[in-house]
């Protein structure tokens, strides 16, 4: 306990770094997945290869990716860019499936109406398809966000890992407290991030909140 008191500064620092390293890739990943997913629904032969390729990328061990990236990107070995890029890759590889599923979840008759009403294709994406896909996309967003928060700590193995550095720190000293604090804070962070996403989804999809029992016919 005294350790926590003595190291509040350090913990706070790592928490901030952790948050940054986990969330930025989610945002970048989303910005990449949506256009990519849209292209995949336009050219439907692309969708399955894309999803499969995502699966392969996702199975690359994160440690390896963290270390290999500087050699590929020309970044410095301790640069946070490496972690951000690696996690962005994971985010896209997971999220692409949800984006595609989400865009496909637009009921055929709704899409038909939208075309017939005279929406152009890009306009339709923004005004109709994306809003309706929000629940499915958010389901994926929740999973990647939480997964990223867990994965950032692996970066500690190469010296940039947010809360993960508390793990290595405690571990080297055979000292439980920092490890427990790190795990607990990761969980807490994930929980809060998840709650925020759930809240955001509620705000973005007011129609999904309504009770689904249709009222009696008012003639």
């Amino acid at each position, binding site marked *: 306990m005294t350790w926590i008191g003595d190291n509040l500064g350090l913990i706070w620092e790592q928490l901030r770094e952790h948050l940054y390293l986990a969330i930025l890739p989610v945002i970048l990943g989303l910005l990449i997945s949506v256009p990519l997913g849209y292209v995949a629904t336009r050219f439907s032969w692309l969708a399955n290869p894309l999803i499969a390729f995502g699966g392969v990328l996702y199975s690359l061990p994160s440690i390896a990716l963290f270390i290999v990236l500087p050699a590929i990107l020309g970044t410095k070995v301790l640069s946070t860019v490496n972690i951000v890029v690696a996690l962005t890759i994971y985010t896209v590889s997971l999220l692409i499936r949800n984006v595609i599923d989400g865009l496909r979840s637009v*009921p055929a*008759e*709704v899409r*038909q*109406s*939208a*075309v*017939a*009403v*005279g*929406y*152009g294709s890009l306009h339709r994406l923004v005004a*109709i398809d994306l*809003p*309706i896909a929000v629940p499915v996309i958010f389901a994926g967003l929740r999973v990647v966000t939480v997964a990223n928060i867990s994965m950032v700590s692996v970066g500690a193995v190469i010296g940039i890992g947010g809360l993960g550095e508390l793990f290595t720190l405690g571990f080297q000293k055979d000292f439980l407290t920092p490890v427990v604090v790190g795990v607990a804070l990761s969980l807490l962070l994930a929980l809060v991030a998840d709650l925020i996403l759930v809240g955001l989804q509620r705000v973005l*999809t*007011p*129609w999904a909140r*309504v*009770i*689904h029992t*249709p*009222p*009696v*016919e*008012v*003639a």
Partner: protein
Amino acid sequence: MIEFEDVTKQYPDGTVAVDTLSLRIPSNEITVFVGPSGCGKTTSLRMINRTIERTSGRISIDGEDINSKDAVALRRGIGYVIQHAGLFPHKTVVDNIATVPKLLGWDKRRARTTAMELLERVGLDVKLAERYPAQLSGGQQQRVGVARALAADPPIMLMDEPFSAVDPIVRNQLQEELLRLQRDIGKTIVFVTHDIDEAIKLGDNVAILRVGGKLAQLAPPSELLANPVDDFVRDFVGRDRGYRALTFVHPDELPVKPLPAELVLDDAGAPVGWRTDHEVQPVNAVYKQGDSLRAALDAVLTSPNGWGVCIDANGRAVGIVDQVIVAEALRS
């Protein structure tokens, strides 16, 4: 007028859905496309707003080829209603209705006011304006679909089996409302159904298509019932054809007999029942002056004693008819 000239649609997989179809759809009337499943009704309809592109032939609106226009602009000038309404689940009722006006760049106030007016026009309570589609019953959704299609006041409305997903009672209401509405607005409506009863009820003209997208017959319903061109149409029009045809027989004035003593009237002169030895039997069967022969015949058939009561617009009994009178009317 919408005109099809030798229009053919072949899907990429080789299916010929519509085959050298030629027909004219008069303005300001309801034309119904009817036919068995897969006969190309939907395809024909959707070629009009170019959500399906024809393979060959020509479709024109008031003489102008629809391909000479931008597809998006064309669509904004044509209302479109489909089964399950296809409402946008993420927009409120009023926003759904205001979709096209907004696309056309109307200012918000005007789009909204129009939407609210339409809501009432299609028989919905304005209290429903801020609901989402999921909060409406099937029949209500269908009404919103109609309102949305009407929003920019397009001269043409395409309706693809709009009422087939609701139960028969609500469907009946919706049909009545459409007819009422059409009396006000007089649009050119192309209506697709596979229900011949619906076609007969709604259509000023009915086009019966056969599988393969060929026109079998295009005629007003009465004509269709009276003179089906071939066995396919005859079978499709179905049993009770003769009885249903009476719907279109409006004898100028059916000669009525004077009210008999057995008929009990209330103070206002409305029929109440038939006096018998022991009791008063209810009058099950009345028809209004000017109603079709079908209504008169049904009144006769329904009545406990074979006498159908004719009432005037105020509900007062004015006379009775029996099977002999109806039979006479039929003969002529």
